[in-house]
């Protein structure tokens, strides 16, 4: 390779490489180092010990919270997928006019513009005991007195998070559905297969990579959320990110927080790795 080319490559490469090294690799490395430090009143001091990890794995509260968070993340992803899939399907296969399709697509992405906090906050107004939903249900006679089951519990968190993260589910599903050649569905119909079966045995399997991508994204976003528990969660709403935040705040126990963050990172990484495998699988098929 000649010198000029090498220089050109270096120029293109060095900013992103430097950036990723300095702001991604180094921070994670320091995070790792911190996780071995030790809390010492009033702050924390360098050390090399596994106490933080021991604490995480022996105190059942961490396990419980992680499990709860995983559960909530799962239901959020599932719910978002259930809402997003038909929507994306409709856009790709049912809407003929490209203009309308684009509008409807943007309609899903657009709420991202409005503050997450505000959007989540309005759910309080909607779901509360004296909220819009209760008023509506009472005016229609479905309920005789306001119900408090809609707000301040895990379901409310799940609904809110589904709402907030739907765009991240619609985008990849839409992308993958759009890539499925129309002729595959026609071929299936041609072979005597009805539309429902065609959906189940052709369209759905082929859209799995998109679902997986959206699922991963939604799952990981939920996994790291600490706002919803605060806004619409009930007394059983604490999630792992809240615990981590409180280690960096209230407890001023950054080492434990770092260790928790690393545990979270590991969980997320393994989820990404698994889902990557899935997506790869799907991509190979179109090759």
């Amino acid at each position, binding site marked *: 390779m000649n010198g000029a080319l090498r220089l050109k490559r270096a120029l293109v490469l060095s900013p992103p490489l430097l950036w990723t090294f300095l702001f991604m690799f180094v921070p994670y490395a320091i995070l790792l180092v911190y996780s071995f430090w030790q809390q010492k009143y009033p702050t924390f001091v360098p050390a090399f010990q596994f106490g933080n990890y021991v604490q995480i794995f022996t105190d059942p509260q961490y396990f419980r919270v992680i499990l709860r968070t995983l559960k909530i993340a799962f239901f959020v992803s599932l719910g978002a997928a259930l809402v997003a899939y038909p929507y994306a399907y409709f856009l790709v296969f049912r809407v003929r006019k490209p203009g309308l399709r684009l509008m409807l697509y943007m309609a899903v992405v657009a709420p991202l513009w409005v503050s997450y906090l505000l959007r989540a906050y309005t759910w309080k107004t909607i779901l509360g005991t004296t909220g819009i939903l209760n008023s509506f249900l009472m005016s229609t006679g479905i309920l005789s007195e306001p119900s408090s089951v809609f707000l301040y519990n895990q379901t409310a968190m799940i609904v809110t998070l589904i709402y907030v993260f739907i765009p991240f589910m619609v985008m990849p599903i839409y992308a993958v559905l759009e890539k499925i*050649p129309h002729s595959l569905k026609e071929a*299936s119909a*041609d*072979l005597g*297969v009805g539309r429902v079966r065609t959906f189940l045995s052709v369209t759905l399997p082929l859209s799995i990579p998109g679902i997986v991508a959206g699922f991963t994204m939604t799952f990981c976003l939920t996994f790291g959320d600490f706002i919803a528990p605060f806004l619409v969660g009930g007394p059983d709403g604490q999630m792992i990110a809240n615990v981590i935040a409180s280690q960096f705040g209230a407890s001023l126990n950054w080492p434990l927080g770092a260790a928790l963050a690393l545990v979270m990172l590991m969980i997320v990484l393994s989820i990404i790795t698994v889902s990557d495998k899935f997506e790869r699988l799907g991509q190979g*098929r179109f090759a």
Partner: protein
Amino acid sequence: MPEHTPVSKIIEIENLTKTFGKVVGVDDISLSVEQGEFVTLLGPSGCGKSTLLRMIGGFEEPTSGRILLDGQDVTHVPPSKRAVNMVFQDYALFPHLSVGKNVGYGLRVAGMPRREVREKALEALALVGLEDRFDAAPHMLSGGQRQRVALARAIVRRPKVLLLDEPLSALDANLREQMQVELKALHTKMGLTFILVTHDQTEALTMSDRIVVMRGGKIVQMGSPVDLYERPATSYVAGFIGSTNQFRSVVATGPTGPQVQCFGQPISAPAGVAPGQEALFGFRPEKALVQFGEEGGGPDTLRGSVADILYHGQSVRLMIDLGAGEVLVDLPMSGSDGMPQVGDAVSLRVGADKIMVLADEVAA
């Protein structure tokens, strides 16, 4: 084709029209196809071939007109209920299913037991010589192999009619030629009715029992390959199938009978035109008898010189400068005659029986 044996007519298309908004895709076409026939729809891009085929397959709802399949009106029957199968241009193999599962897909979904499906799929794959790739994934196959799997999948349910939308266009020249032969062999072997769409004239000539030449959503001419090649009705058909030297001339009365002027040189007029009439005439490059040297002559002979030479191996195409224009002639290279040279004087003998009278173009 005898019009009075309804039993053998597997497809009857009556006044079929399809419009997309303002675009007319297919324009009032009527056509019938015999049981076991190999019909090719030939025409340039956008002439409505695919649209016609897709209406037969049920993928496109006709704007008006009827389609009868084996005597039954199927105009509004969905594709899944028509005994017609299609081989798609992009093959449309299901990427998530193995080759065997692709072929067996239609049977499986119809509820046939697994074992039987496997058997039938293997059988169909054997027909296209791919029984050993049963478990392969489609993306592991070459283009030609995918093509064959698509074929196997389409024939596994023994459809009454097999539709093929440019099945070979994605293959390279050598492979395409090979697949043409195989496809034709398959047609003979299975006795199925084939309707093939192509815009490759050689493909159409090689494979078909009957060629339907389309243009602008209408049928321009149909007939056997020889019919179309030897007796093209219009200048358009003549130009689309094979090469033609075309010239316009008024028929005059010459010393030996009616004559026409081919780029300024008189030759005998073909039968069917009368003196005084003006018409478009044409002859095929390979029909002219080529003689080199100054002296060659006699009646019906055009004199000129070699302007360009295109070597094709088994033949040589010469561009002959006639002074007032240029014509192409093909020289078979079967002998061991030397190659002609640019500038060589040449005489072309074009018999009246070699000259075609072409109708004036009407359709757009």
